[in-house]
């Protein structure tokens, strides 16, 4: 790699269940203009654009980037859309990273979004199942996450219990109170979660993310430009992605190997040997409460089976030694196509010291994680204050 890249500006919209005042392009534009403003740039300063969104069926427009691009000022410019399911927000940022480190472009705007209220989220997710195979039993994302949670609980009982999942739900909703962009900002208890309606057992309503309208955007610049644009860019220190097929032997949703491998790759690139010690915080894609425990194990924050102990210890809460999801995570807002980018954006913002009320003091290295597909795509991005 002949040059480095960094995030120099970020923008988000307030995540809500329905933004009835804006169309899809306008929603994305809102986040993109905020990111440009944050970086002190105008649309004309951008060399290339990347857009990320989850399945087109959500908003019902094919090749939506062609419609949205002009709202970002991309007319007449290079524009590419990435489309990798749940990981797409992160995959798009990663594509933006390669746009820059390839040497082709100096300043790239990456935007990701979802406007789930325009369509039908669970139907859209079920359309991801193979019509020739398992579509008839499809139940959106909760069905799959329910299978995952059960596999995880069954393996680690009695050390991990349903209450441990509930603790994640409580922690992240509480964290969200300090995040002005979060959708669900709730003071709830473990009892509330346990008593909430079953969705896909063992998942209960409060174990599940909401569906959201929202967009996020980041501006990525090459090292030379980044240093001029902001005193404290969030440098890409490690990037790893890994895909796996759900149809190979011994698929393990409770310890997904794609996540383990993506993390290994990112750690290697960032020269990280002991993630829990060397990283200062993490934003992980927990669309369902148990997933924070599963990812904590797969990312090496704790040993397999110790996810329950980790949440119980309070070390991953705000004020703990290793806060996870200070933003409130996906449990507090899930505009699907943007959610993986929001994890990166939040991690980068922590490194830039601009996270406001949910800033973790002194963050130098932060990790962002995402998953997608049938728990088969993983991305890990590590941001650092220095490179």
């Amino acid at each position, binding site marked *: 790699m002949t040059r480095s890249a960094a995030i120099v500006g970020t923008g988000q919209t307030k995540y809500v269940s*329905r*933004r*009835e*005042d*804006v*169309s*899809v*392009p*306008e929603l994305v*534009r809102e986040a993109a203009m905020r990111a440009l403003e944050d970086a002190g740039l105008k*649309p*004309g300063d951008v060399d290339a654009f990347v857009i990320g969104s989850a399945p087109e*069926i959500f*908003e*019902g427009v094919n090749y939506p980037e062609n419609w949205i691009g*002009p*709202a*970002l*000022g*991309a*007319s007449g410019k290079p524009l590419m859309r990435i489309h990798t399911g749940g990981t797409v927000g992160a995959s798009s940022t990663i594509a933006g990273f390669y746009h820059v480190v390839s040497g082709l472009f100096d300043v790239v705007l990456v935007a990701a979004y979802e*406007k789930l*209220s*325009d*369509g*039908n989220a669970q*139907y*859209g997710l079920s*359309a991801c199942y193979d*019509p*020739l195979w398992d*579509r008839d039993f499809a139940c959106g994302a909760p069905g799959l996450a329910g299978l995952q949670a059960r596999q995880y609980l069954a393996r680690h009982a009695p050390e991990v219990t349903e209450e441990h999942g509930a603790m994640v739900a409580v922690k992240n909703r509480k964290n969200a109170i300090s995040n002005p962009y979060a959708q669900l900002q709730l003071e709830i208890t473990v009892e509330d979660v346990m008593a909430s309606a079953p969705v896909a057992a063992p998942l209960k309503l409060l174990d599940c993310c909401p569906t959201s309208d929202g967009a996020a955007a980041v501006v990525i610049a090459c090292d030379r430009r980044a240093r001029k644009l902001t005193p404290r860019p969030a440098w890409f220190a490690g990037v790893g992605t890994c895909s796996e097929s759900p149809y190979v032997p011994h698929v393990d949703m409770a310890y997904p190997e794609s996540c383990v491998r993506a993390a290994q790759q990112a750690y290697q690139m960032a020269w990280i040997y002991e993630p829990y010690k060397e990283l200062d915080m993490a934003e992980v894609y927990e669309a369902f409460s148990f997933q924070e425990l599963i990812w904590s194990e797969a990312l090496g924050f704790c040993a397999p089976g110790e996810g329950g102990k980790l949440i119980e210890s309070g070390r991953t809460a705000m004020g703990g030694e290793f806060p996870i999801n200070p933003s409130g995570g996906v449990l507090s807002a899930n505009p699907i196509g943007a959610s993986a980018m929001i994890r990166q954006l939040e991690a980068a913002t922590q490194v830039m010291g601009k996270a406001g009320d949910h800033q973790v003091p002194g963050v130098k290295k932060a990790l962002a994680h995402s998953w997608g597909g049938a728990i088969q795509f993983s991305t890990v991005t590590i941001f650092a204050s220095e490179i």
Partner: protein
Amino acid sequence: MDLKPPELIYLEGETRCNYHWATGGAVAAFLSAIRDHGKLLGAVCESCGGVTVPPQTYCEKCGSSMSDWREVGPGGVVMSWTRIADGYEGAPLEAPFRFVLVRLAGADTAMVHVAPDVDGIKVGATVSPEFKPEGERKGAVTDIRWFVPDAMGGEE
């Protein structure tokens, strides 16, 4: 009879979903103006000054915000047209009909709409919209029934 069991070639399936797309301020104003006033609205770009019809809150050409409205048309000039000879599912009119690209008076962009299949629809011809009766308008672009050539006085 000893018939071989039939092979499975195609599985019939469908993707079927309902949408309610939020229009956003500019589109809402345009569609409301058609419905309530039978008028056509354009938006003015605060940077390049171009008038876009139908309007957006952003300028497609330069990415700037739109800051003002202009009433445009109702008439315009045909920039291009195509004749659709055969009907298809979802067709806006019974075939044959035409799609037209019309630049409305006062606009810097052209809009796509439909027209009857008549010779008066040609490049450079002036055309006018024929609105549906007020009671039938729903706040959709199809509240304009079609564009008809002025030379024909609005006949079909």
